[in-house]
Protein backbone atom coordinates (compact mmCIF):
# COMPACT_ATOMS: atom_id res chain seq x y z
CA UNK A 1 0.00 0.00 0.00
CA UNK A 2 1.75 3.14 -1.21
CA UNK A 3 -0.33 5.37 1.06
CA UNK A 4 0.87 3.48 4.12
CA UNK A 5 4.53 3.51 3.07
CA UNK A 6 4.23 7.18 2.26
CA UNK A 7 2.79 7.88 5.69
CA UNK A 8 5.54 5.84 7.32
CA UNK A 9 8.18 7.71 5.33
CA UNK A 10 6.64 11.04 6.32
CA UNK A 11 6.48 10.02 9.97
CA UNK A 12 10.13 8.88 9.89
CA UNK A 13 11.21 12.15 8.30
CA UNK A 14 9.28 14.05 10.94
CA UNK A 15 10.96 12.09 13.73
CA UNK A 16 14.39 12.61 12.20
CA UNK A 17 13.69 16.31 11.87
CA UNK A 18 12.68 16.43 15.53
CA UNK A 19 15.91 14.72 16.57
CA UNK A 20 17.88 17.18 14.45
CA UNK A 21 16.03 20.12 16.01
CA UNK A 22 16.63 18.68 19.49
CA UNK A 23 20.39 18.55 19.00
CA UNK A 24 20.39 21.88 17.19
CA UNK A 25 18.67 23.43 20.23
CA UNK A 26 21.22 21.83 22.55
CA UNK A 27 24.09 23.14 20.41
CA UNK A 28 22.71 26.68 20.27
CA UNK A 29 21.94 26.75 23.99
CA UNK A 30 25.51 25.77 24.85
CA UNK A 31 27.06 28.08 22.25
CA UNK A 32 25.08 31.06 23.54
CA UNK A 33 26.59 30.49 27.00
CA UNK A 34 29.74 32.10 25.61
CA UNK A 35 28.09 34.93 23.64
CA UNK A 36 27.01 38.29 25.03
CA UNK A 37 24.64 39.39 26.50
CA UNK A 38 24.84 37.07 29.51
CA UNK A 39 21.59 36.72 31.40
CA UNK A 40 23.25 36.26 34.81
CA UNK A 41 20.12 37.19 36.75
CA UNK A 42 18.08 34.60 34.85
CA UNK A 43 20.80 32.01 35.51
CA UNK A 44 20.75 32.66 39.26
CA UNK A 45 16.96 32.54 39.27
CA UNK A 46 16.97 29.21 37.43
CA UNK A 47 19.64 27.79 39.75
CA UNK A 48 17.36 28.63 42.62
CA UNK A 49 14.37 27.11 40.81
CA UNK A 50 16.15 23.93 39.74
CA UNK A 51 18.54 23.46 42.64
CA UNK A 52 17.39 25.04 45.87
CA UNK A 53 13.70 24.34 45.39
CA UNK A 54 14.39 20.68 44.51
CA UNK A 55 16.43 20.15 47.65
CA UNK A 56 13.56 18.85 49.79
CA UNK A 57 12.45 16.18 47.36
CA UNK A 58 16.04 15.06 46.74
CA UNK A 59 16.81 14.86 50.48
CA UNK A 60 13.73 12.72 51.07
CA UNK A 61 14.38 10.30 48.20
CA UNK A 62 18.08 9.99 49.04
CA UNK A 63 17.51 9.39 52.75
CA UNK A 64 14.86 6.70 52.30
CA UNK A 65 16.67 5.04 49.41
CA UNK A 66 19.84 4.72 51.52
CA UNK A 67 17.83 3.29 54.40
CA UNK A 68 15.97 0.73 52.31
CA UNK A 69 19.17 -0.23 50.53
CA UNK A 70 20.87 -0.97 53.85
CA UNK A 71 17.83 -2.86 55.12
CA UNK A 72 17.41 -5.06 52.05
CA UNK A 73 21.11 -5.78 51.61
CA UNK A 74 21.49 -6.68 55.31
CA UNK A 75 18.99 -9.52 54.83
CA UNK A 76 20.91 -10.92 51.86
CA UNK A 77 24.39 -10.31 53.31
CA UNK A 78 23.56 -11.88 56.66
CA UNK A 79 23.28 -15.23 54.89
CA UNK A 80 26.94 -14.91 53.92
CA UNK A 81 28.05 -13.26 57.16
CA UNK A 82 28.96 -10.14 55.22
CA UNK A 83 26.87 -7.52 57.00
CA UNK A 84 30.06 -5.64 57.90
CA UNK A 85 30.32 -4.65 54.24
CA UNK A 86 27.00 -2.84 54.11
CA UNK A 87 28.79 0.52 54.06
CA UNK A 88 30.71 -0.46 50.94
CA UNK A 89 27.56 -1.65 49.19
CA UNK A 90 25.45 1.35 50.12
CA UNK A 91 28.10 3.90 49.16
CA UNK A 92 28.97 2.22 45.85
CA UNK A 93 25.28 1.91 44.92
CA UNK A 94 24.46 5.47 45.92
CA UNK A 95 27.48 7.20 44.40
CA UNK A 96 27.66 5.23 41.17
CA UNK A 97 24.02 4.60 40.33
CA UNK A 98 21.16 5.46 42.64
CA UNK A 99 22.27 8.96 43.54
CA UNK A 100 22.59 10.26 39.97
CA UNK A 101 19.62 8.34 38.57
CA UNK A 102 17.23 9.13 41.41
CA UNK A 103 18.23 12.80 41.53
CA UNK A 104 17.83 12.92 37.74
CA UNK A 105 14.39 11.32 37.81
CA UNK A 106 13.23 13.57 40.63
CA UNK A 107 14.46 16.71 38.90
CA UNK A 108 12.91 15.53 35.61
CA UNK A 109 9.57 15.17 37.34
CA UNK A 110 9.68 18.39 39.29
CA UNK A 111 11.74 20.79 37.21
CA UNK A 112 11.40 19.34 33.70
CA UNK A 113 7.63 19.48 33.84
CA UNK A 114 7.80 23.03 35.26
CA UNK A 115 10.09 24.28 32.51
CA UNK A 116 7.97 22.67 29.78
CA UNK A 117 4.78 24.14 31.23
CA UNK A 118 6.30 27.60 31.62
CA UNK A 119 7.79 27.79 28.13
CA UNK A 120 4.73 26.11 26.65
CA UNK A 121 2.48 28.75 28.19
CA UNK A 122 4.79 31.46 26.91
CA UNK A 123 4.57 29.93 23.43
CA UNK A 124 0.78 29.70 23.30
CA UNK A 125 0.32 33.21 24.71
CA UNK A 126 2.74 34.62 22.08
CA UNK A 127 5.28 35.70 24.71
CA UNK A 128 8.07 33.86 22.88
CA UNK A 129 7.05 35.58 19.64
CA UNK A 130 7.11 38.86 21.57
CA UNK A 131 10.70 38.20 22.66
CA UNK A 132 11.61 37.60 19.04
CA UNK A 133 9.97 40.80 17.88
CA UNK A 134 11.71 42.74 20.66
CA UNK A 135 15.02 41.68 19.16
CA UNK A 136 15.83 39.00 21.75
CA UNK A 137 16.79 35.46 20.81
CA UNK A 138 14.40 33.28 22.85
CA UNK A 139 16.92 30.43 22.97
CA UNK A 140 19.53 32.69 24.49
CA UNK A 141 17.12 34.29 26.94
CA UNK A 142 15.07 31.25 27.95
CA UNK A 143 16.93 28.05 27.10
CA UNK A 144 20.58 28.83 27.84
CA UNK A 145 20.05 29.90 31.49
CA UNK A 146 17.93 26.82 32.17
CA UNK A 147 20.42 24.43 30.58
CA UNK A 148 23.37 26.00 32.42
CA UNK A 149 21.48 25.97 35.71
CA UNK A 150 20.62 22.30 35.28
CA UNK A 151 24.21 21.43 34.33
CA UNK A 152 25.41 23.09 37.53
CA UNK A 153 22.67 22.15 39.97
CA UNK A 154 21.88 18.51 39.15
CA UNK A 155 25.44 17.36 40.06
CA UNK A 156 25.25 19.38 43.31
CA UNK A 157 21.89 17.82 44.12
CA UNK A 158 23.37 14.40 43.36
CA UNK A 159 26.26 14.93 45.78
CA UNK A 160 23.75 15.88 48.49
CA UNK A 161 21.58 12.90 47.54
CA UNK A 162 24.59 10.56 47.77
CA UNK A 163 25.60 11.85 51.19
CA UNK A 164 22.07 11.73 52.62
CA UNK A 165 21.59 8.21 51.22
CA UNK A 166 24.81 6.95 52.80
CA UNK A 167 23.82 8.65 56.05
CA UNK A 168 20.41 6.92 55.95
CA UNK A 169 22.22 3.63 55.38
CA UNK A 170 24.46 4.27 58.41
CA UNK A 171 21.40 4.81 60.65
CA UNK A 172 19.87 1.48 59.61
CA UNK A 173 23.24 -0.29 59.83
CA UNK A 174 23.90 0.84 63.36
CA UNK A 175 20.34 0.73 64.74
CA UNK A 176 18.94 -2.38 63.07
CA UNK A 177 21.84 -4.44 61.71
CA UNK A 178 24.35 -3.85 64.47
CA UNK A 179 27.22 -2.48 62.42
CA UNK A 180 29.12 0.15 64.47
CA UNK A 181 28.79 3.63 62.98
CA UNK A 182 32.55 4.22 62.90
CA UNK A 183 33.15 0.96 61.11
CA UNK A 184 30.36 1.75 58.62
CA UNK A 185 31.97 5.07 57.66
CA UNK A 186 35.41 3.47 57.45
CA UNK A 187 34.10 0.92 54.94
CA UNK A 188 32.43 3.74 53.01
CA UNK A 189 35.77 5.52 52.69
CA UNK A 190 37.54 2.25 51.76
CA UNK A 191 35.04 1.81 48.96
CA UNK A 192 35.50 5.38 47.73
CA UNK A 193 39.31 5.32 47.94
CA UNK A 194 39.68 1.66 47.01
CA UNK A 195 38.86 2.12 43.35
CA UNK A 196 41.71 4.54 42.88
CA UNK A 197 41.88 8.19 41.96
CA UNK A 198 41.65 10.20 38.81
CA UNK A 199 44.26 13.00 38.57
CA UNK A 200 45.67 11.65 41.88
CA UNK A 201 42.95 13.13 44.14
CA UNK A 202 39.49 12.61 42.60
CA UNK A 203 38.11 9.20 43.59
CA UNK A 204 37.04 7.16 40.54
CA UNK A 205 33.59 6.63 42.04
CA UNK A 206 33.12 10.38 42.24
CA UNK A 207 33.96 10.76 38.55
CA UNK A 208 31.30 8.21 37.67
CA UNK A 209 28.90 9.81 40.09
CA UNK A 210 29.40 13.32 38.75
CA UNK A 211 29.64 12.76 34.99
CA UNK A 212 26.23 11.13 34.98
CA UNK A 213 24.24 13.89 36.72
CA UNK A 214 25.96 16.47 34.53
CA UNK A 215 24.66 14.64 31.45
CA UNK A 216 21.26 14.04 33.05
CA UNK A 217 20.94 17.74 33.88
CA UNK A 218 21.51 18.58 30.23
CA UNK A 219 18.99 15.96 29.10
CA UNK A 220 16.30 17.24 31.48
CA UNK A 221 16.71 20.93 30.60
CA UNK A 222 17.03 20.48 26.84
CA UNK A 223 14.11 18.03 26.64
CA UNK A 224 11.91 20.36 28.68
CA UNK A 225 12.91 23.44 26.67
CA UNK A 226 12.49 21.60 23.38
CA UNK A 227 8.94 20.50 24.13
CA UNK A 228 8.15 23.82 25.80
CA UNK A 229 9.12 26.14 22.98
CA UNK A 230 7.58 23.83 20.35
CA UNK A 231 4.23 23.67 22.11
CA UNK A 232 1.16 23.98 19.91
CA UNK A 233 -2.53 23.56 20.58
CA UNK A 234 -3.25 25.89 23.49
CA UNK A 235 -3.55 24.71 27.06
CA UNK A 236 -4.04 21.10 25.98
CA UNK A 237 -0.76 21.35 24.12
CA UNK A 238 0.94 22.65 27.28
CA UNK A 239 -0.26 19.56 29.14
CA UNK A 240 1.01 17.27 26.39
CA UNK A 241 4.41 18.99 26.37
CA UNK A 242 4.69 18.52 30.12
CA UNK A 243 3.85 14.83 29.92
CA UNK A 244 6.20 14.23 26.98
CA UNK A 245 8.99 15.99 28.82
CA UNK A 246 8.72 13.82 31.93
CA UNK A 247 8.33 10.59 29.94
CA UNK A 248 11.13 11.22 27.45
CA UNK A 249 13.62 12.65 29.91
CA UNK A 250 13.01 9.75 32.34
CA UNK A 251 13.53 7.20 29.57
CA UNK A 252 16.60 9.02 28.29
CA UNK A 253 18.08 9.14 31.79
CA UNK A 254 17.73 5.37 32.20
CA UNK A 255 18.97 4.52 28.71
CA UNK A 256 21.86 6.99 28.75
CA UNK A 257 22.77 5.76 32.25
CA UNK A 258 23.44 2.27 30.89
CA UNK A 259 25.62 3.47 28.01
CA UNK A 260 27.45 5.97 30.21
CA UNK A 261 28.16 3.24 32.75
CA UNK A 262 29.56 1.03 29.98
CA UNK A 263 31.70 3.89 28.73
CA UNK A 264 32.96 4.97 32.14
CA UNK A 265 33.75 1.43 33.22
CA UNK A 266 35.77 0.86 30.08
CA UNK A 267 37.60 4.18 30.51
CA UNK A 268 38.10 4.21 34.30
CA UNK A 269 38.09 0.48 34.96
CA UNK A 270 36.39 -1.51 37.80
Amino acid sequence: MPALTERLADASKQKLRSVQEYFSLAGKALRFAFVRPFYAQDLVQQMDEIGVKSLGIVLLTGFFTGMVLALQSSVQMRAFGATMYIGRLVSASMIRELGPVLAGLMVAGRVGSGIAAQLGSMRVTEQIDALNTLGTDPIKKLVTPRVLAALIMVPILTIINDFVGIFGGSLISSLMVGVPTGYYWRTVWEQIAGDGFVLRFIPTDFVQGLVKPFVFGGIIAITACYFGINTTGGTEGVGQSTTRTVVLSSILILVVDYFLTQLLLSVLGS
Partner: protein
Amino acid sequence: MIDDPRDPRERTSPPTTPVDSSTPAPTDDRASDRRQEGRRASERRPTTIRRAIRDELADEPTDEYYSETHPQEHRAVPVIELDHVYLAFDRPILENVSVEARKGETICLVGESGTGKSTILKLILRLLVPDRGKVCIHGEDITDLTFEEALETRQHMGMVFQSAALFDSMSVFENVAYPLREHTELDDDEIEQRVREKLAFVDLDPDQVMGQLPSQLSGGMRKRVGIARGMANNPEIMLYDEPTSGLDPLSTGTITRLIMKLQRELDVTSVVVSHDIRSVFRMATRVAVLNERRIVFFGTPEEMASSDDRYLRDFLGGS
Protein backbone atom coordinates in the same frame (compact mmCIF):
# COMPACT_ATOMS: atom_id res chain seq x y z
CA MET B 1 -9.01 44.00 38.34
CA ILE B 2 -8.79 47.74 38.54
CA ASP B 3 -10.83 50.48 36.97
CA ASP B 4 -9.90 51.63 33.52
CA PRO B 5 -8.39 55.08 33.98
CA ARG B 6 -9.30 56.35 30.52
CA ASP B 7 -9.87 60.01 30.10
CA PRO B 8 -13.42 60.62 31.35
CA ARG B 9 -14.05 62.61 28.17
CA GLU B 10 -13.81 59.37 26.25
CA ARG B 11 -16.60 57.88 28.27
CA THR B 12 -18.90 60.82 27.83
CA SER B 13 -18.13 61.71 24.25
CA PRO B 14 -21.03 60.98 21.91
CA PRO B 15 -20.57 57.98 19.64
CA THR B 16 -19.67 58.66 16.04
CA THR B 17 -21.93 57.54 13.23
CA PRO B 18 -23.18 54.06 13.93
CA VAL B 19 -22.05 51.38 11.52
CA ASP B 20 -25.46 49.85 11.34
CA SER B 21 -28.85 51.12 12.24
CA SER B 22 -31.08 48.46 13.61
CA THR B 23 -33.63 50.91 14.96
CA PRO B 24 -34.47 53.43 12.25
CA ALA B 25 -36.17 56.57 13.45
CA PRO B 26 -39.74 57.29 12.32
CA THR B 27 -39.90 58.78 8.85
CA ASP B 28 -41.31 62.10 10.09
CA ASP B 29 -38.50 62.53 12.57
CA ARG B 30 -35.93 61.79 9.89
CA ALA B 31 -37.47 64.34 7.60
CA SER B 32 -37.37 66.85 10.39
CA ASP B 33 -33.73 66.07 11.08
CA ARG B 34 -32.93 66.46 7.39
CA ARG B 35 -34.50 69.84 7.31
CA GLN B 36 -32.51 70.88 10.36
CA GLU B 37 -29.15 69.46 9.39
CA GLY B 38 -29.24 70.02 5.66
CA ARG B 39 -28.06 67.86 2.84
CA ARG B 40 -25.01 66.36 4.56
CA ALA B 41 -27.01 65.20 7.49
CA SER B 42 -29.38 63.39 5.20
CA GLU B 43 -26.45 61.52 3.69
CA ARG B 44 -25.46 60.35 7.15
CA ARG B 45 -28.54 58.19 7.41
CA PRO B 46 -26.74 54.89 7.94
CA THR B 47 -28.77 52.47 5.91
CA THR B 48 -25.66 50.48 4.93
CA ILE B 49 -22.19 49.93 6.29
CA ARG B 50 -20.60 51.47 3.21
CA ARG B 51 -22.76 54.54 3.54
CA ALA B 52 -21.89 54.80 7.22
CA ILE B 53 -18.20 54.47 6.44
CA ARG B 54 -18.40 57.19 3.80
CA ASP B 55 -20.16 59.41 6.33
CA GLU B 56 -17.55 58.68 8.94
CA LEU B 57 -14.79 59.53 6.51
CA ALA B 58 -16.39 62.89 5.96
CA ASP B 59 -15.94 63.54 9.69
CA GLU B 60 -12.26 62.62 9.79
CA PRO B 61 -9.79 65.42 9.04
CA THR B 62 -7.59 62.95 7.19
CA ASP B 63 -6.67 64.99 4.12
CA GLU B 64 -5.93 68.28 5.84
CA TYR B 65 -4.10 66.60 8.62
CA TYR B 66 -1.87 64.68 6.25
CA SER B 67 -1.08 67.64 4.08
CA GLU B 68 -0.01 69.51 7.23
CA THR B 69 1.94 66.84 9.03
CA HIS B 70 3.25 64.77 6.16
CA PRO B 71 4.72 66.80 3.31
CA GLN B 72 4.44 64.95 0.00
CA GLU B 73 8.17 64.38 -0.52
CA HIS B 74 8.43 63.11 3.06
CA ARG B 75 5.64 60.61 2.50
CA ALA B 76 7.01 59.39 -0.81
CA VAL B 77 9.78 57.37 0.87
CA PRO B 78 8.75 53.69 1.07
CA VAL B 79 9.68 52.48 4.52
CA ILE B 80 8.19 49.00 4.08
CA GLU B 81 7.87 47.33 0.72
CA LEU B 82 6.71 43.85 -0.20
CA ASP B 83 7.46 43.19 -3.85
CA HIS B 84 5.74 40.26 -5.60
CA VAL B 85 5.98 38.04 -2.55
CA TYR B 86 5.11 34.36 -2.71
CA LEU B 87 4.99 32.12 0.35
CA ALA B 88 3.82 28.54 0.83
CA PHE B 89 4.11 25.96 3.58
CA ASP B 90 2.04 22.83 3.07
CA ARG B 91 -0.22 24.96 0.89
CA PRO B 92 0.14 28.40 -0.72
CA ILE B 93 -0.22 31.21 1.82
CA LEU B 94 0.57 34.34 -0.21
CA GLU B 95 0.72 34.78 -3.97
CA ASN B 96 2.14 37.78 -5.78
CA VAL B 97 1.61 40.14 -2.85
CA SER B 98 2.90 43.67 -3.36
CA VAL B 99 2.24 46.36 -0.82
CA GLU B 100 4.18 49.35 0.48
CA ALA B 101 4.02 51.77 3.36
CA ARG B 102 5.54 55.22 3.04
CA LYS B 103 6.91 57.19 5.94
CA GLY B 104 4.20 58.16 8.39
CA GLU B 105 1.52 56.09 6.71
CA THR B 106 -0.85 53.69 8.41
CA ILE B 107 -1.55 50.75 6.17
CA CYS B 108 -4.40 48.53 7.25
CA LEU B 109 -4.56 44.92 6.12
CA VAL B 110 -8.06 43.54 6.04
CA GLY B 111 -9.63 40.37 4.73
CA GLU B 112 -11.25 37.18 5.82
CA SER B 113 -9.57 35.00 8.44
CA GLY B 114 -6.80 32.81 7.10
CA THR B 115 -5.98 34.96 4.10
CA GLY B 116 -2.42 35.68 5.23
CA LYS B 117 -2.69 39.07 6.91
CA SER B 118 -0.67 38.16 10.01
CA THR B 119 1.79 36.35 7.77
CA ILE B 120 2.59 39.68 6.13
CA LEU B 121 3.50 41.09 9.55
CA LYS B 122 5.79 38.11 10.14
CA LEU B 123 7.45 38.73 6.78
CA ILE B 124 8.05 42.38 7.70
CA LEU B 125 9.52 41.27 11.04
CA ARG B 126 11.57 38.72 9.14
CA LEU B 127 10.18 35.93 11.29
CA LEU B 128 9.35 34.34 7.94
CA VAL B 129 11.22 34.50 4.65
CA PRO B 130 9.30 34.53 1.36
CA ASP B 131 9.82 31.75 -1.20
CA ARG B 132 9.96 34.41 -3.92
CA GLY B 133 9.90 38.18 -4.01
CA LYS B 134 11.45 40.83 -1.80
CA VAL B 135 10.66 42.37 1.57
CA CYS B 136 12.44 45.69 1.92
CA ILE B 137 12.80 47.96 4.95
CA HIS B 138 14.10 51.42 4.02
CA GLY B 139 14.95 50.00 0.60
CA GLU B 140 17.10 47.19 2.00
CA ASP B 141 16.02 43.64 1.23
CA ILE B 142 15.77 41.82 4.56
CA THR B 143 15.19 38.34 3.16
CA ASP B 144 18.91 37.55 3.09
CA LEU B 145 19.71 38.80 6.58
CA THR B 146 21.27 36.42 9.08
CA PHE B 147 19.34 35.61 12.24
CA GLU B 148 21.45 38.06 14.25
CA GLU B 149 20.98 40.82 11.64
CA ALA B 150 17.25 40.16 11.68
CA LEU B 151 17.21 40.58 15.47
CA GLU B 152 19.00 43.91 15.00
CA THR B 153 16.45 45.01 12.38
CA ARG B 154 13.56 44.10 14.67
CA GLN B 155 14.90 46.49 17.29
CA HIS B 156 13.71 49.33 15.04
CA MET B 157 10.18 47.95 14.96
CA GLY B 158 7.47 47.67 17.56
CA MET B 159 4.91 44.91 17.51
CA VAL B 160 1.57 44.84 19.27
CA PHE B 161 0.03 41.40 19.51
CA GLN B 162 -3.62 40.42 19.43
CA SER B 163 -3.28 39.04 22.97
CA ALA B 164 -0.86 41.87 23.99
CA ALA B 165 1.66 39.06 24.77
CA LEU B 166 2.93 40.80 27.88
CA PHE B 167 5.45 38.82 29.92
CA ASP B 168 3.17 37.57 32.66
CA SER B 169 5.92 37.01 35.21
CA MET B 170 7.05 40.64 34.93
CA SER B 171 5.39 43.81 36.19
CA VAL B 172 4.08 46.44 33.79
CA PHE B 173 7.23 48.47 34.45
CA GLU B 174 9.51 45.54 33.65
CA ASN B 175 7.52 44.80 30.50
CA VAL B 176 7.86 48.31 29.12
CA ALA B 177 11.47 48.58 30.32
CA TYR B 178 12.42 45.26 28.71
CA PRO B 179 13.47 46.55 25.27
CA LEU B 180 15.31 49.44 26.93
CA ARG B 181 17.29 47.13 29.18
CA GLU B 182 18.02 44.82 26.27
CA HIS B 183 19.08 47.26 23.60
CA THR B 184 20.07 50.56 25.19
CA GLU B 185 22.70 51.81 27.60
CA LEU B 186 20.20 53.88 29.58
CA ASP B 187 20.66 53.90 33.35
CA ASP B 188 17.84 52.98 35.74
CA ASP B 189 16.61 56.57 36.19
CA GLU B 190 16.47 57.18 32.46
CA ILE B 191 14.66 53.88 31.93
CA GLU B 192 12.07 54.76 34.56
CA GLN B 193 11.59 58.17 33.01
CA ARG B 194 11.11 56.63 29.56
CA VAL B 195 8.68 54.02 30.90
CA ARG B 196 6.62 56.72 32.63
CA GLU B 197 6.59 58.78 29.45
CA LYS B 198 5.39 55.86 27.33
CA LEU B 199 2.72 54.79 29.80
CA ALA B 200 1.46 58.37 29.97
CA PHE B 201 1.41 58.48 26.16
CA VAL B 202 -0.99 55.54 26.10
CA ASP B 203 -3.19 57.25 28.69
CA LEU B 204 -2.21 55.06 31.63
CA ASP B 205 -1.29 56.44 35.04
CA PRO B 206 2.31 55.26 35.57
CA ASP B 207 2.06 55.42 39.38
CA GLN B 208 -1.02 53.26 39.31
CA VAL B 209 0.00 50.55 36.85
CA MET B 210 3.81 50.27 36.91
CA GLY B 211 3.94 47.83 39.81
CA GLN B 212 1.04 45.69 38.66
CA LEU B 213 1.23 42.35 36.90
CA PRO B 214 -0.43 41.99 33.48
CA SER B 215 -3.00 39.62 35.00
CA GLN B 216 -4.25 42.49 37.17
CA LEU B 217 -5.11 44.67 34.16
CA SER B 218 -8.20 44.79 31.96
CA GLY B 219 -7.96 43.71 28.30
CA GLY B 220 -7.85 47.28 27.03
CA MET B 221 -5.16 48.27 29.51
CA ARG B 222 -3.06 45.25 28.56
CA LYS B 223 -3.28 46.31 24.92
CA ARG B 224 -2.16 49.80 25.87
CA VAL B 225 0.76 48.45 27.87
CA GLY B 226 1.57 46.34 24.79
CA ILE B 227 1.64 49.51 22.69
CA ALA B 228 3.81 51.25 25.31
CA ARG B 229 6.24 48.34 25.24
CA GLY B 230 6.24 48.31 21.44
CA MET B 231 7.08 52.01 21.28
CA ALA B 232 9.51 52.05 24.22
CA ASN B 233 12.52 51.99 21.94
CA ASN B 234 11.08 54.78 19.75
CA PRO B 235 10.72 52.53 16.70
CA GLU B 236 10.20 53.91 13.21
CA ILE B 237 7.75 51.12 12.38
CA MET B 238 4.84 49.84 14.44
CA LEU B 239 3.02 46.65 13.57
CA TYR B 240 -0.34 45.75 15.09
CA ASP B 241 -1.96 42.33 14.89
CA GLU B 242 -5.67 42.82 15.45
CA PRO B 243 -5.14 45.43 18.18
CA THR B 244 -8.84 45.94 18.85
CA SER B 245 -10.06 42.34 18.78
CA GLY B 246 -11.96 41.27 21.86
CA LEU B 247 -12.32 44.81 23.18
CA ASP B 248 -15.48 46.70 24.04
CA PRO B 249 -16.38 49.65 21.78
CA LEU B 250 -14.90 52.23 24.17
CA SER B 251 -11.58 50.42 24.42
CA THR B 252 -11.61 49.88 20.66
CA GLY B 253 -11.98 53.62 20.17
CA THR B 254 -9.17 54.29 22.64
CA ILE B 255 -6.77 51.93 20.88
CA THR B 256 -7.69 53.33 17.48
CA ARG B 257 -7.06 56.87 18.70
CA LEU B 258 -3.73 55.78 20.18
CA ILE B 259 -2.60 54.37 16.86
CA MET B 260 -3.61 57.62 15.16
CA LYS B 261 -1.85 59.62 17.89
CA LEU B 262 1.36 57.66 17.37
CA GLN B 263 1.21 58.38 13.68
CA ARG B 264 0.31 62.03 14.15
CA GLU B 265 2.77 62.94 16.90
CA LEU B 266 5.68 60.61 16.24
CA ASP B 267 5.39 60.12 12.47
CA VAL B 268 5.56 56.36 12.92
CA THR B 269 4.91 54.13 9.92
CA SER B 270 2.30 51.57 10.90
CA VAL B 271 0.85 48.37 9.50
CA VAL B 272 -2.35 47.26 11.18
CA VAL B 273 -4.08 43.92 10.71
CA SER B 274 -7.69 44.38 11.68
CA HIS B 275 -11.19 43.03 11.24
CA ASP B 276 -12.72 46.18 12.64
CA ILE B 277 -13.68 48.03 9.46
CA ARG B 278 -14.82 51.11 11.30
CA SER B 279 -11.44 51.50 13.04
CA VAL B 280 -9.69 50.77 9.77
CA PHE B 281 -11.50 53.56 8.01
CA ARG B 282 -10.67 55.96 10.81
CA MET B 283 -6.95 55.31 10.98
CA ALA B 284 -5.84 54.02 7.59
CA THR B 285 -4.11 56.13 5.01
CA ARG B 286 -4.37 53.16 2.68
CA VAL B 287 -6.12 49.82 2.96
CA ALA B 288 -4.96 46.51 1.51
CA VAL B 289 -7.66 43.88 1.11
CA LEU B 290 -6.55 40.26 0.96
CA ASN B 291 -8.64 37.55 -0.59
CA GLU B 292 -7.52 34.04 -1.41
CA ARG B 293 -3.82 34.73 -0.82
CA ARG B 294 -3.75 37.83 -3.03
CA ILE B 295 -4.20 41.53 -2.54
CA VAL B 296 -7.38 42.39 -4.41
CA PHE B 297 -7.43 46.06 -3.44
CA PHE B 298 -4.85 48.56 -2.28
CA GLY B 299 -5.95 52.14 -2.01
CA THR B 300 -7.33 54.85 0.20
CA PRO B 301 -10.37 54.25 2.40
CA GLU B 302 -12.31 56.67 0.19
CA GLU B 303 -11.50 54.63 -2.90
CA MET B 304 -12.45 51.46 -1.08
CA ALA B 305 -15.74 52.84 0.14
CA SER B 306 -16.69 54.07 -3.32
CA SER B 307 -15.46 51.00 -5.18
CA ASP B 308 -17.97 49.05 -7.22
CA ASP B 309 -15.92 45.88 -7.01
CA ARG B 310 -18.28 43.08 -6.10
CA TYR B 311 -15.98 41.48 -3.52
CA LEU B 312 -15.33 44.79 -1.78
CA ARG B 313 -19.02 45.55 -1.74
CA ASP B 314 -19.75 42.16 -0.21
CA PHE B 315 -16.87 42.56 2.22
CA LEU B 316 -18.15 45.93 3.42
CA GLY B 317 -21.65 44.62 3.80
CA GLY B 318 -23.38 45.47 0.55
CA SER B 319 -23.84 48.69 -1.39
